[in-house]
């Protein structure tokens, strides 16, 4: 069972959260100047890394806040969590 430390509510069962998506993708800064290929890469193309991965989660049954979570995709260990604007680093 995964527990996710919500920065607002504290550690909670992952049943309370819903997965939102890859948090490494950055929306193109100037939509008008972005090529269709770059839009395609931003909207559709995702890596499938083994190991630490930055993700957005939504604490839907709790405080309703969006979170950023650094999760190991191989072990499901949650390495760090924070608000969406936080830069997360794995603890050493």
């Amino acid at each position, binding site marked *: 069972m995964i527990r996710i430390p919500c920065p*607002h*509510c*504290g550690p*909670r*069962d992952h*049943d*309370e959260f819903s997965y939102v998506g890859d948090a490494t993708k950055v929306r193109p800064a100037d939509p008008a100047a972005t090529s269709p290929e770059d839009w395609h890469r931003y909207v559709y193309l995702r890596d499938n890394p083994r190991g630490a991965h930055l993700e957005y989660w939504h604490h*839907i*049954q709790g*405080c309703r806040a969006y979170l950023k979570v650094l999760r190991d995709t191989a072990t499901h260990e949650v390495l760090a969590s924070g608000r969406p604007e936080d830069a997360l680093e794995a603890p050493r």
Partner: protein
Amino acid sequence: MAEIMTLPPRRSALDSVWVLGDYGIPGPSGPGVTIIRRLGLGAIQLDARRDTAAAVARAVSDSLGIALPAPGRAASGGEFRAIWIGPERWMLLGSDSTGLEARLRAAVEPAGGSVIDQSHGRAILRLSGPRVRDTLAKGTGIDLHPRAFAENTAAQTGLFHLSVTIDRRRGTGTFDVHAMRGFAQSLHESLCEAAAEFGYRLA
């Protein structure tokens, strides 16, 4: 033109299933859990923004005499109760006769707060008795031991897969459970099933 009523009178979502009495297998000292419905209670949601939270908190404190609680906490002040339900977001509760919604709106809107009346959308139960924690523990991952969940602690969490707010009230064994109205009968059924082995009273 006829005067338009804003909302029809509120009716409990549990009217059709709430049959007063004792059920299940009571312990030697009576039912392990007593459940009452908190009727006639207004539930008003208050939203601030990060840059207006301090001003909104001051406005609430000045006008209603209640200090907005920190994350994970609830507080009573005067005839009202406030529960933290999210970042810069609280639920305020007060009897319908207190005019809470209008008073809150007048106080916080100039300070940049938003007020939404949720009274028609919530069903609020009060659970007390020696086996309340055992009953709730069957449906939630939250640690409800007083060491971890003391008086005036509140949590938004899952209970029997439903989204609820759990608010620990006075004493060690009294909890208010707020659910969305549409799920009230489902919550009622799950609570009754969970409490049957301890005996429960619908009061």
